[in-house]
């Protein structure tokens, strides 16, 4: 793999840009791998990457039914933060956020990580108390956050109306080191690095069955034939239920649509991310100038990758109240992704009833920020055969044992 650098740009400028290599190979599947990862979204690719980088396991295939990064990873609004309430969440999301800081350097691919800061607005007394509590919890967890006044909110984001008619801004939870990154680049950067380690990323190849013998997976059936493996990782977000059914177990997961939309591009007007969880909407401005907008998930089981119009209406209505200046913006695009929701709104990184089969899912509406940390933890679990310290609390058994990692009450929305 040729490194990207300022020198490479200069070199290519002198030869009509004919020397750029493909970022990753498109090999035909081999008959067998040490590890197969199903799903080339951010989490699947990051798992493969850290299997190679941290554990020296490179005979790995990542199998993707569509194109890599075409699932939720390429559909999300890219908010990165780690100001969660519960200790296990703070640990994995903070690990992830800190990996994001050096990710571009780590795999020599610009993921455009922009630690521009994230404000979560407190617009009810309950939220004020909740976010103060989170700020205290974060202090104990070593995650830098602070509860800020309405004036400070206005300072950081002048386009906010802090005296809104229904829900005036009473303060905010501010994480200066949160921000955004380029979603496609995260998937592409991991894919390029995996390919460079000799891993096979096999796109346009759907896993249609899981073959097991004596309680262990022996391989998968795919639209490109049967492929054998010593270990299997299922990392398919909204399709986790479908894969679990193939493997013969059930998950505490329901798949629903979550939508986002972007406006026409405008001049820079907002250099932080703002989440307004009471009225249910959040917004940031992309480098292209579009306002990137998201809201809450739709309510019913859905695999269509589009959602219901009234949810967009609710989100936009909430945001116009918060940012009156956007009321005349035209919206350019709207889309949906199928998110995998657990009851406690925390993810699952876990062994499964099949001994050598592992699952990573349940990131729901908020897993983009977790991609590096989750890949790190999942690779550790697959390599070692059991969850390490980052993953331990996120096992499937927590539902049976009543050990929820309850982030659903901690944050009205979880992006």
């Amino acid at each position, binding site marked *: 793999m040729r490194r990207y650098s300022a020198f490479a740009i200069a070199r290519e400028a002198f030869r009509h840009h004919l020397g750029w290599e493909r970022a990753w190979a498109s090999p035909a599947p081999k008959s067998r791998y040490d590890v197969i990862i199903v799903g080339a979204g951010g989490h699947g690719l990051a798992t493969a990457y850290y299997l190679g980088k941290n554990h020296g396991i490179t005979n790995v295939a990542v199998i993707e039914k569509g194109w890599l990064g075409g699932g939720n990873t390429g559909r999300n609004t890219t908010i990165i933060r780690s100001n969660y309430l519960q200790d296990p969440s703070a640990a994995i999301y903070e690990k992830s956020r800190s990996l994001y800081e050096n990710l571009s350097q780590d795999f020599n691919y610009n993921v455009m990580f922009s630690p521009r800061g994230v404000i979560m607005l407190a617009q009810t007394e309950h939220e004020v108390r909740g976010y103060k509590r989170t700020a205290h919890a974060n202090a104990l967890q070593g995650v830098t956050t602070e509860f800020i006044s309405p004036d400070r909110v206005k300072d950081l984001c002048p386009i906010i109306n802090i005296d809104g008619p229904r829900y005036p801004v009473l303060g905010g939870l501010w994480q200066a080191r949160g921000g955004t990154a380029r979603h496609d680049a995260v998937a592409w950067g991991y894919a390029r690095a995996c390919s460079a380690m000799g891993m096979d990323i096999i796109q346009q190849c759907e896993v249609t069955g899981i073959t097991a013998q004596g309680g262990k997976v022996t391989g998968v059936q795919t639209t490109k034939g049967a492929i054998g493996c010593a270990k299997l990782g299922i990392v398919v977000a909204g399709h986790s*239920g479908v894969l679990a059914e193939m493997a013969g177990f*059930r998950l*505490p997961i*329901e798949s629903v649509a979550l939508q986002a939309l972007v406006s026409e591009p405008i001049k820079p007007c907002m250099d932080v991310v703002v989440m307004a969880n009471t009225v249910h909407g959040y917004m940031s401005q992309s480098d292209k100038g579009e306002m990137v907008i998201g809201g809450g998930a739709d309510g019913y*089981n859905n*695999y269509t990758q589009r959602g219901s*119009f*009234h949810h967009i209406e609710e989100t936009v209505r909430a945001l116009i109240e918060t940012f009156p200046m956007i009321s005349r913006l035209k919206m350019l695009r709207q889309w949906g992704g199928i998110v995998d929701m657990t*009851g406690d709104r925390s993810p699952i990184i876990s062994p499964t009833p099949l001994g050598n089969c592992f699952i990573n899912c349940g990131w729901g509406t908020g897993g983009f920020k977790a991609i590096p940390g989750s890949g790190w933890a999942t690779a550790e679990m697959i390599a070692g055969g059991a969850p390490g310290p980052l993953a331990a609390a996120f096992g499937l058994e927590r539902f*049976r044992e009543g050990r929820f990692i309850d982030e659903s009450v901690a944050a009205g929305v979880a992006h």
Partner: protein
Amino acid sequence: MLILTCPNCGLTAEESELAPGGEAHLKRFGPGSEDADFEGYLFQRANPKGVHFERWRHAYGCGKWFLAARCTVTLEVFGTYPAQTTEPPTEIVNKIKAKRPDWSLS
């Protein structure tokens, strides 16, 4: 927009008038049951990509619960029926089978 007919009041309601209530026909396990059964009842869901039997409430209408059979991929609605029904009605099952020969009630 998803449109369902409420079997309680007979009204045709748009989804903004309805509140979704998740998987239908779950077998309830109460106090004294095995941990695994209790876990299954409380948390584990079929979450199928295809035909789904589910609960809805006519929240901004008559306020009552009912059940629906719907495809989660095409959003086709096969029918709605009263909440007191303990398993999918034969009539609806036959209708789904006629349209989707590969499908079976699991």
